[in-house]
């Protein structure tokens, strides 16, 4: 946030400049990347679940290599097993898993003879109340802002992930430390929002540890990294553990969330 203010100052004093430079980089060994978001949509009965496995790649590469020969399954608290079958491009599908709130699930992946596991609890989420738009958003007060209101359940800690899909994908995360029990909003504002945009809004209930994971992840991406007023870059470690070889840890996360969705057309 500070960098943004700072950036504004510099831009308006007309002294700073940004340019793309050629910086050679060291390369690290590829690691497994797990995107395992098991979702239960409020307005949908679909039980189709999808897990994506890829590998990390050199930073300047344009292609992300998919992992196509892993074995993937999820086991419920009661011992039910859900096998995920590879379809294409590293996507693994199961059509029968409908996660139950507050139940714990285990993800098991076997890849290159190494066993990876992760455990998470299915998190619920409250409903989106309504969506509101004003034209006084952003630090400068001249951007379109979209507020997605919801009512936080009181007297318990809750964590939220909002994904706004417009031309770009924007992730916002919230905890209810300062808003417990109140009607509050997920906030989406940037200079690219135009009247007529069709914004898809997804509100996820997430666990505290997934919130913390995303908190670190967000600090590493895009314009949030680099510069004296930003936090130090770090390796973002998720909840998937390599049981066979600890050194060869994977990236990514396994979580189960209830989701409320909506769409909003910008006026």
């Amino acid at each position: 946030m500070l960098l943004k203010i700072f950036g504004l100052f510099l831009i308006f004093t007309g002294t700073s400049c940004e340019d793309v430079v050629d910086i050679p980089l060291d390369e690290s060994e590829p690691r497994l990347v797990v995107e395992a978001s098991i979702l239960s949509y409020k307005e949908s009965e679909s039980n189709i679940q999808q897990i994506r496995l890829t590998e990390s790649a050199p930073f300047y590469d344009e292609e992300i290599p998919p992992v196509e020969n892993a074995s993937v399954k999820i086991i419920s608290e009661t011992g039910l097993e859900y096998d995920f079958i590879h379809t294409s491009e590293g996507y693994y599908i199961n059509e029968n898993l409908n996660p139950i709130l507050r139940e714990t699930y285990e993800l098991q992946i076997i890849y290159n003879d190494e066993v990876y596991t992760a455990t998470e609890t299915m998190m619920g989420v409250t409903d989106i109340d309504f969506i509101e738009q004003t034209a006084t958003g952003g630090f400068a007060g001249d951007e379109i802002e979209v507020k997605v209101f919801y009512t936080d359940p009181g007297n318990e800690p809750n964590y939220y992930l909002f994904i706004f899909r417009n031309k770009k994908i924007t992730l916002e995360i919230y905890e209810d430390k300062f808003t417990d029990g109140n009607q509050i909003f997920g906030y989406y504002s940037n200079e690219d929002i135009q009247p007529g945009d069709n914004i898809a809004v997804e509100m996820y209930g997430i666990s505290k540890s997934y919130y913390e994971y995303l908190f670190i992840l967000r600090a590493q991406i895009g314009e949030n990294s680099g510069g004296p007023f930003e936090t130090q870059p770090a390796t973002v470690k998720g909840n998937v553990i390599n049981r066979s070889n600890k050194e060869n840890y994977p990236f990514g996360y396994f979580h189960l969330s209830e989701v409320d969705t909506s769409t909003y057309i910008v006026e």
Partner: protein
Amino acid sequence: MKQNFSLFILACCYAFTSFAQESYTLSGTITDASSNETLIGVNVLIPSLNTGVVTNEYGFYSLKVPEGTYDLVISYLGFQTITERITISSQTNLNFKLKESSEFLDEIVISQRSDGLNIKKPEMSLNKLSINTIQKMPVIFGEVDVIKSLLMLPGVSNAGEGSSGFNVRGGAVDQNLILLDEATIYNSSHLFGFFSVFNPDAIKDLKLYKGGIPAKYGGRVSSVLDIYQRDGNSREFKMQGGIGAISSRLLAEGPIVKDKGSFLIAGRSSYAHLFLKFTDNENSAYFYDLNTKLSYRLDDKNKLLFSGYFGRDVFSLSRNFKNTYGNTVLNLRWNHIFSDNIFSNLSVIYSDYYYGLTLGFVGFNWDSGIKNLNLKYDFDHYLNDTFQLKYGLQNTYYDFNPGEIEPIDETSGINYFKLNNKYALESAVYFSAEHNISEKLSAEYGLRYSGFYRIGRDELSIYENDSPVVYNEDRDIYEEAEPIGTQTYESGKIISSFGNFEPRFSIAYSFNDNQSIKASYNRMAQYLHLISNTSSPTPLDVWTPSGPFIDPQILDQYAFGYFRNFQDGIYSLETETFYKKIKNRIDYVNGANLIANNNIERVILNGKSRAYGLEVLFRKNEGRFTGWLAYTLSRAEQKTPGRTPVETGINGGDWYKSNYDKTHDVSITASYEASKKWEFNANFSFQTGLPSTFPTAQYSYENITVPVYAPRNSNRLPAYHRLDLSANYNPKISSEKDFRSSWSFGIYNVYNRKNAYSLTFRENSDTGVNEAVRLSLFGIIPSVTYNFSF
């Protein structure tokens, strides 16, 4: 420790036995003839006795002299030297007024220098910059800046062009003790670090101690920047000011009672709309500060001084964002002279740092700050010509407000939330001796005992095994522990206490009048920590006291140096090497959220830091052409190992470079007086690029590109270099001497180098290709400043 103490006792015995001669005290105050401003660091010498002393921070000197007649020489850079024959047959009080040399000599500032004492004095790792030198140096936007000038000295650097504060010998920004008229300044930056909070017009003198720090100072482990404000002219009313590209200044001073009392008031303000009006909304970003001083001499032995400082930065961008921060300092001092050889100063200081933030679109106000009340009593005791004692005691009461969140109005979804205030008391007693052991050997040694008490009222969390941070071995991450209870401490009850002996020692051996070697050791304790996990501190960062979960930082520093004057001091060379280590330097677990965190202990780990290096400073001190070359070769590192063998700590528990580590740092400052009207100045600096962390791979998560980073600070930005030029023009002084004006023309970054301020590795949102983006802050920037005085 014990050894130092017995050495001190020995030295005292020696000092007192040499006391038996028939001698008298010669003492007095030395002032500037034109303003009655007291002068700091004036040399008072009796060459025939080979003895001398320099005036203290209040212009006072005292010498023990045997009965007889002597020539007394009083000299100070930029002033005419006084030589006077004096006869001592009783206690003598002699005050001197020095006249500025440039006013009376046709020659261009060729002043007599008597820097011989610097060779012989045990003080080392000390840089003095006169305000004249600072005002000449070319600076960005033409804004004269105390802290930016310090960066041209060896051993002083910062974490990039726009970063706040400064780093001394690999120390962090929060490890500098910054004193303005003896009061602590908590944030020395305006506009995130572009400018410092000190108005150069109001400053008389500054000293930067990088090592060998006298026992008088404590509470920070890295350096002491000791700045004194001017007292004001007690002879006549004067005004001066300047108009620059960013700010304007105005200063007024004059007598309250002629020759007895004076006032000084200085204001500085940037222009209200540094942000251009880029929208229809109200936007502004500005800073201002106000320095005030009242001084009144009651009689020859008593003087009262009142100083005040008030500074604020304000950013306001529509109703959505408003940010205000700044320091307030009030200080009342009483100078009293006991029996001609004991000078005392009693200070009562109030100091306050405030930070406020309003985020309208989120719906809250945020306030935080630190207040303290400080009582100090310091004595300078001139025992005899070979022995001088300084002793005193200091007491500071702190009230920390780590933060308070208020909903902006009743429609806001934010609940009121207040982090617990924290209270603490810091006390210290010290003594310090300056001892000329022989003609060639002199030493300064002392001991400080500091105590720190965290006191109630407070409510602290209790954790299982007393461990607020839990290591998750499976995931190799640190997590916050859940408190298992809380303990309430009533008001005034001691929560935790710390005590440290801090020995200080430095010694100088001079081979002759022009060559010496010096060595020093100092141990220091720091009880306050600036909670900041960004590469450079921000105004929002909160100071927090040591307590049950945070131990005080302890420093040990060793330095060794060789000093030499050439051609009677026209040239001088100072070389020093240093090694320092600090324990209990806190570090932050990945993802630590420091803002509005009532349990900071749950995101910090205890680490250590070390720094070592070589500094060379070669100066030309006299003539039309003056300047210096400074070179520093150094390394600054930090390490936070795991607490048990299974834990990995931070960065794998390995040493990593500090954010401000620069292997090579070269600065050249040159000034040439072409004529009485024109003066030209140049600065050049070359520095190894700052440490940075580059990615070694990438992956995709939720369709977002996530970089995989190398170990912390294992890469570097490209090398930094820059040339600045300035020309100062003083139009001919007219017959009516009252009104003077000058122009200063500057060019910053003459060859327009795009120095990388940061490198950001990101996905181009239009093309989807990953790229490295360089942000460079300042290209070539010309500036003009107009100054006047009357």
